[in-house]
């Protein structure tokens, strides 16, 4: 089950593989959404996440390794800059939308008529549930 990884050749075992990953994925800094204050360490900024050859991003994104899987080439896009106000925002639906570019919600609201009907409807729909208080935190281990 030895995985051959690009030019690095055959790894003797997965432990080493894991270690290699750790050194590669060292965070560059901490991403912080300027709207909701979500914070997470990012390991890459750009449009071509490392270790992934077949996917490109359509915006300059702050990216981390997907923490919910052990696959080292899985990435998670955290957010990017709003193409209008340049605020750094997360991709969460409460903070921004993507419609061929990234827009933070305040900017969308300001320019709502520039967006197609579908987006407007979508935002309308979204408002209702977003008023719901943060869900009851579930169990702590």
């Amino acid at each position: 089950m030895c995985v051959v990884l690009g030019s690095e050749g055959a790894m003797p075992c997965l432990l080493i593989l894991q270690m290699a990953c750790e050194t590669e994925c060292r965070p560059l800094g901490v991403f912080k959404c300027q709207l909701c204050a979500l914070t997470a360490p990012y390991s890459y900024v750009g449009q071509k996440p490392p270790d992934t050859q077949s996917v490109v991003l359509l915006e300059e994104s702050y990216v981390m390794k997907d923490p919910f899987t052990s696959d080292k080439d899985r990435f998670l896009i955290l957010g990017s800059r709003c193409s209008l106000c340049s605020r750094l925002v997360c991709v969460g639906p409460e903070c921004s939308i993507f419609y061929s570019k990234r827009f933070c919600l305040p900017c969308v609201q300001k320019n709502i008529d520039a967006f197609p009907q579908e987006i407007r409807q979508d935002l309308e729909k979204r408002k209702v549930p977003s008023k719901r208080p943060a869900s009851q935190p579930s169990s702590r281990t």
Partner: protein
Amino acid sequence: MGRSGPGDQNRGQFCDSIVISHNMPPPRTREGRDPRDRHRAPREEEAPEKWDFNCPDTRRLFEDAFFRDEDYIRQGSEECQKFWTFFERLQKFQNLKTARKEERDAQHPKHSIPALADLPCTYDARYRINLSILGPDPRGARGLGGRLPPERVSEFRRALLHYLDFGQKQSFGRLAKLQRERAALPIAQYANRILQTLKEHQVVVVAGDTGCGKSTQVPQYLLAAGFSHVACTQPRRIACVSLAKRVGFESLSQYGSQVGYQIRFESTCSAATKIVFLTVGLLLRQIQREPSLPQYQVLIVDEVHERHLHNDFLLGVLRRLLPQRPDLKVILMSATINISLFSSYFDKAPVVQVPGRLFPITVTYQPQEVEPTTSKLEKLDPRPFLRVLEAIDNKYPPEERGDLLVFLSGMAEISTVLEAAQTYASHTQRWVVLPLHSALSVADQDKVFDVAPAGVRKCILSTNIAETSVTIDGIRFVVDSGKVKEMSYDPQAKLQRLQEFWISQASAEQRKGRAGRTGPGVCFRLYAESDYDAFAPYPVPEIRRVALDALVLQMKSMSVGDPRTFPFIEPPPPASLETAILYLRDQGALDSSEALTPIGSLLAQLPVDVVIGKMLILGSTFHLAEPVLTIAAALSVQSPFTRSAQSSPECAAARRPLESDQGDPFTLFNVFNAWVQVKCERSGNSRKWCRRRGVEEHRLYEMANLRRQFKELLEDHGLLAGAQVPTPGDSYSRLWQRRERQALYQLKRQHEEGGGRRRKVLRLHEDQDGSSDEDRGSAAARGAGDSVDIQDVKFKLRHNLEQLQAAASSAAALPRDQTALLKLVLARGLYPQLAVPDPFNSGRKDSDQIFHTQAKQGTVLHPTCVFANSPEVLHTREQEAGDGEGGRDDKDKMSSRHQLLAFVSLLETNKPYLVNCVRVPALQSLLLFSRSLDTNGDCSRLVADGWLELQLAGSESAVGLLAAALRLRARWESVLDRQLARQARRPEEDEDDEAPVNRGEVAALSRELLRFTASKVPYSLRRLTGLEVQNLYVGPQTVTAAPSLPGLFGSSTLSPHPTKGGYAVTDFLTYNCLMSDADLYSDCLRTFWTCPHCGLHMPLTPLERMAHENTCPQAPRDGPPGAEDAAPEPPQKVSALQRPYHCEACQQDFLFTPTEVLRHRRQHV
């Protein structure tokens, strides 16, 4: 753009009829920019019957093109399957949508802001996706362009895009949720205060009740604040693992290794680790190695309120360490129990108190009427518990969710209530009843976390394990019996007692709190409020309840000074300390000045009971390491035998071939070895194999782990030659082995990934009419169905199966004498834990067999004990000597086959039980191991350790045996001493050290020990009565003329024993100090005697006879016991006064003292 040419020519089998009006997107460019992509309506009707995305061949073509090894999704992966599922759903969804979707014209005015001006005017869901796939180049990859119609490729790409976007949304959603939850924890608002206080003080107490999040959050706050060497101790191993996982997950480095754990057998730490969760025991060992603990910046001691023995000790050690390490920060984390105790212990350390998150809980007191004089042995009455179930059913509609947690004192109580509650549940169909205690398998324990079906409540019957260790969500009702079973320790009898107590107020509150974690709750207390008021405020700390041997040993090895003056947070009872110190001196771990002996310092490093540690050391001396390792490991874990098996005859029958009538340790030994064989031969079946025999496999895994740890420790200490891993010779098999290991690692990794998710499987409990036993079986079956046996995988990764198998198969054929030697090793290790069978046992029922230890009369065999079913092997069967003067009963029966039971522990529940017994020959064991042996004048009457009397048939054999025993003991001691001395000064240079204990010597010693053990001398065995013990000794004598007995027992000079009377021959043997009806001067009576070796014939006292035999040069080296010469060390044995003497008359050489020479000459006169 436009159609790609090759597609037309090699359209292949699929697309003859497809109207190609669709634009193939250009290769290697961004997807979905061109609104014309969507012009797909025309083909909607014609495709379905021809085109089948579900066809495996079709899918494979796509997979070949898009899911290559370098792609985001790989062919054949789980992800790939998930994609196709997603794909199917998306197709269905889009079919619905496209039906009512009509084309809209792009009528949007251009926006003035450039960023908004170039927004696509026709909406398409694809514009909402911020990534794009680089597909295979159709021109480069002819195969794809050729065989797949472009619009299908486009459809596929589109789906793939949505899939990736969906994945992103999902993961981001989880991330956001995680952060929301963290922020909502009560402790979140205290993060800064904690960090600030820590900046200003060396020690901070963080007090917060369960649910406030302290265990998971505080380490993360430290990490965020830039600390990088954080250790967090936990009282339990499981907590280390689960906390490391949780914190790793929350801090988003689950698969990086900033967060790790370290427990007895496992460590996930690396250079990158910043927080490590470890057990208190392990931290103490680290301190033992490096007392200043330089590797840590911050130390979090969690759950200090639980007052575990090690935790209390750790606090003491830290208090001393802090002034030397002013840079070390310590956070004590506690429930809001007795906080001031900890604060004041650390010089009024500041306290940050965090409120727990508890909903209001209604308390109902339901005191039970005391039933008129029900005997103590009677079972618990389950009715009050059923009444609560009933009350809940009546009062709360089933739609209102909320489970019930019942606190009972112990396992027996749980099974009583379980039975009754299950009957009730099968009537009402509204309850799922589950037991929860530490003896359950992990799989069964995990069941309590599953969710009951709608309209059904869980009823969890638990010991106090659910008070703090296990947290179950969704509990709305709590029933508190108010009782707990706790081990208490009787230092006088060295007896552990499992007794039922009232709980403390703190525990009662803790139990109550479990009802209010997810919503308002109800707590039913099955006692009166006045009872509650009478409860002790806090539970008794462990240090006041348990044997302190191990603690004292550890304190000694950490050189923290006299345990009596150590500044414990609350000192242990002085009597417990004294008993422990005395015991360790008895066991040879401490010398007379209470300093650690070599054996003691070794024992201090073995994480086991002193007796088991001794076994390991003794076993390695005799090259019995392999079997002793297994036995020691087996005796150090909980019994692997499940309770349910006791009632199942099939189980009992399947287990029988593994039982050994030598005793429980040998049965465990057989079980382990057979299991290893099963693992080697047909792995995966081991789980079934275990179930069939009523064996908890988990315990066997623990044994394997422990065994390996012991082995490494013995190797580290030079007691065991380092393992030469037998590497397979050829490169092929090496390669194969490596492959196999890699495959195993892969499996392990997959399991770990899947682990989090798999657990939440909802459980529909359909088998609730079944009895509890079926329940258990089905749970195990369910477990077996789960693809990989991760335990098996871990086992194979951790252990060298070949080595284990070699050890196991050699053990299967353990020769008879090896078994006998092994028994000696066990007996010496276990000494003085011996029990003597009651003389009337042979006339009693199997279940009524009683045994007596020195301190406790009337103990019984534990029901799991192998002798409980076959007590006859313990009876003194024969009267072989025949001359047993009529034999009134067994009491004074003369036999050479009296046996004693050596036992591992004495546990009192409703009766005092002997746990894990081995039978050993009585006379020989007592002669070899007794700390005190007293004799009468002719040595035919012996009293061992002041409680067992041995009456030997003949004085001659008695003297012979005694002399042999003395020599054997001296030699055994010397072999052991030299071996331990060697390991004590064991730096690297000892490779060319002359082997201090040569193999030949050990072999000779074992031979002689075996011969000694096999010697057949009829004797009677009897426990002395209390009165006899009081009047045992003659006491100090006025006539102090020491008999001139040069060379009797080595060079020791005889001195009158100050209290017993008689003469102290060695530190354990006192000659002629026993009070007897016979003539006080019997020892002075000389009778004519002929030496069987040299033919010497003269009147001698028994003592003189022994003296002669010990030194008789004619005695054959390996002669029968009693006639041996201590050849290996003659210089030591020779009295200073002895000189070689050649007798002219008889032409023989002697070693004689001047008096002996005279005596000898007289013969020839």
